[in-house]
């Protein structure tokens, strides 16, 4: 009798333990999300598509979708769990400004300073954000949600996370995954649009070499740039402040150690945390919804609109420029941030048509202007919609 009781007790314990395992709690949604996570990891490792982001996000998706018995304080949405504490950086918006600090410390604005009219391309490409905003409204999203979705068109992951955490916290996971996915797909999305909207003659335009920029100009840029943009859009302060501060650390020449930390260990640490926790936040029950699919479609549209707006704006701008000063419209796509991938696309497409036409340096101008433009746009949306 005693022996039977021990066995039944062990069996009960094992049965109870089974209830806690992932096998007992798994749903179709969990398995699907784990497969998506594995696909991200595969694309990052095999195809090298934005590996720095897709590996943490992909593995985060896998972590976040391990079927859990609720109430163990383990899941990302369970208060007090380690993942939940790390996720606060996304929810409260701590991580994106820190990433902007690193971006500022690694960005060379020389191309933009030497040819400042390229800034306007960075402004034009932000049209993708507001185009997607209008479509999202038409699809029934609230203005705050539409603004958070539209920012995907800025092609700037940290900005998208920052804005969505403020305007539509429930959509952060879908928006962040969508933004980073399309940033990884820039080499696939942009070239057909660029070819479609330009003529062969335009693609062959050779631009003047950028002039050398003095150290004084490089130091003045972050200070003047910050004061101006922050006074116009104070709501963009966390992003703009950190971006320009990081750049000042780089250009001042007297804070080399701080700049190296900002563009090295700091940004790496925050990238790991932001990627992993954003991935974790895509739990099947919250992520696998029609809303997420709509967000992915809208994100794609905003990328397409932004790219087209950048290219078309250059063509329009060329109407007012003298013959020797024309801009190659192939750098218009670089107005969406996605630094430096979109600039690299401009260069590659340019070389396809003329082996001697290197557009990389020219494309870096609108590319970094796009970072400023998307931060300004995020500030405007935050000001209007929060």
């Amino acid at each position, binding site marked *: 009798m005693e022996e039977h009781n021990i066995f039944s007790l062990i069996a009960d314990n094992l049965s109870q333990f089974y209830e806690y395992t992932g096998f007992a709690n798994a749903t179709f949604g969990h398995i699907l999300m784990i497969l998506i996570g594995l696909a991200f990891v595969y694309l990052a490792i095999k195809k090298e598509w934005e590996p720095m982001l897709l590996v943490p996000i992909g593995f985060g998706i896998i972590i976040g979708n391990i079927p859990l018995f609720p109430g163990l304080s383990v899941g990302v949405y369970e208060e007090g769990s380690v993942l939940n504490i790390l996720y606060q950086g996304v929810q409260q918006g701590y991580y994106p400004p820190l990433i902007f600090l690193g971006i500022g410390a690694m960005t060379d604005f020389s191309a933009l300073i030497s040819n400042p009219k390229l800034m306007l391309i960075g402004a034009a490409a932000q049209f993708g*954000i507001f185009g997607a905003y*209008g479509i999202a409204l038409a699809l029934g999203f*609230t203005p705050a949600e539409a603004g958070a979705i539209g920012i995907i068109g800025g092609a700037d992951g940290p900005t998208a996370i920052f804005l969505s955490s403020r305007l539509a916290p429930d959509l952060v996971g879908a928006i962040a995954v969508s933004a980073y996915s399309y940033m990884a797909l820039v080499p696939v999305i942009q070239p057909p649009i660029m070819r479609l909207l330009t003529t062969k003659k335009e693609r062959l335009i050779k631009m003047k070499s950028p002039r050398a920029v003095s150290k004084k100009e490089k130091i003045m840029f972050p200070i003047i740039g910050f004061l101006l*943009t922050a006074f116009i859009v104070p709501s963009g302060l966390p992003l703009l402040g950190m971006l320009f501060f990081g750049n000042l650390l780089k250009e001042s020449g007297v804070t080399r150690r701080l700049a190296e930390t900002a563009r090295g260990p700091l940004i790496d640490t925050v990238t790991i945390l932001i990627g992993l926790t954003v991935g974790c936040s895509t739990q099947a029950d919250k992520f696998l919804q029609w809303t997420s699919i709509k967000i992915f479609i809208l994100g794609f549209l905003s990328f397409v609109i932004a790219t087209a707006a950048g290219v078309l704006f250059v063509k329009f701008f060329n109407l007012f420029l003298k013959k020797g000063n024309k801009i190659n419209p192939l750098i218009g796509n670089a107005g969406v941030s996605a630094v430096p991938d979109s600039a690299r696309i401009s260069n590659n497409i340019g070389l396809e048509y003329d082996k001697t036409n290197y557009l990389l340096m020219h494309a870096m101008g609108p590319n970094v202007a796009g970072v400023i433009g998307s931060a300004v746009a995020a500030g*405007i949306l935050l000001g209007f919609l929060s």
Partner: protein
Amino acid sequence: MKIHKIIILIGCLTASLGLHAQNISDMRLNEFLVINTDDFEDDYGHKNGWIELFNTSYGTVDVGGCFLTNDPGNLTKYMIPKGDVLTKVKPRQHTLFWADNLPDRGTFHINFRLEDSDEILFVSSDGRTIVDRIKIDHSIASPNVSYGRTNDGIGSTDGSGEGWEIMKKTSPSTNNVILDGESNSMKLKKLDPYGIIMAITAMSVVFVALIILYLLFKWIGNLSIKKHQKRSDDVAKQNDKAEHKFEETSAEAYAAIALALHLYREETELHDVENTILTIEKSKKAYSPWSSKIYMLRETPQLRKRN
């Protein structure tokens, strides 16, 4: 150098003079009720006059250690006890004090009654700085009718009563003015259902910001180019002068220079190729204690042999 430091120190001290701990200066007397016969009642079930404070800031303010008084000659009449978690007033929130002259009943029961007072003063924790004050006009004080700021936290702080009015209904611990519940976002949806106005406005702002930046840096760039051009011209002029002098140099001078150089080489055994080596081997750097890991690690304890 020392003078600079002193100036910075004085600047910092001057700037800090206007600061109050935890922004006590953001607190306002917001509403009060003198005669309470049929209004809000305290935790003891008693009806008494009350004073409402409002935190106008966007940060939490602890009013513990500050003072409430009805006597300008005695600014420290009632000290709000320190260490009570409830004295921390959250951003844009209210806290209520019962003017029942029964301070033994807890933090929020003060030691005077409003029926016997002509003025209410809220004083900072230094016991000297009057943060806010308001006169009590007994001629208009009716039972269960409160006097408060028309818009929460807005109006005078000098006791003149500007921005204050008799309230239509009492609102202890809540806003005096009921805010429109509709968010900016929802208002915008009604006004601009397709986002066209938003797109035009926002794109205009983005363009304006970057156009100004463009114009500024175009101007700065032009200045820089001009400066560079001027410097180049100066160098060119100097070179011209040097060339001019060079032309005037006589053959004897050339001979003297050549001889001097020859003698210099002979004496010092100078050679045309320096002793530099181009290599792909890792170069050895001079040792520096700053880069030494030995100084950053704990030393391994040495085993001492006993004799």
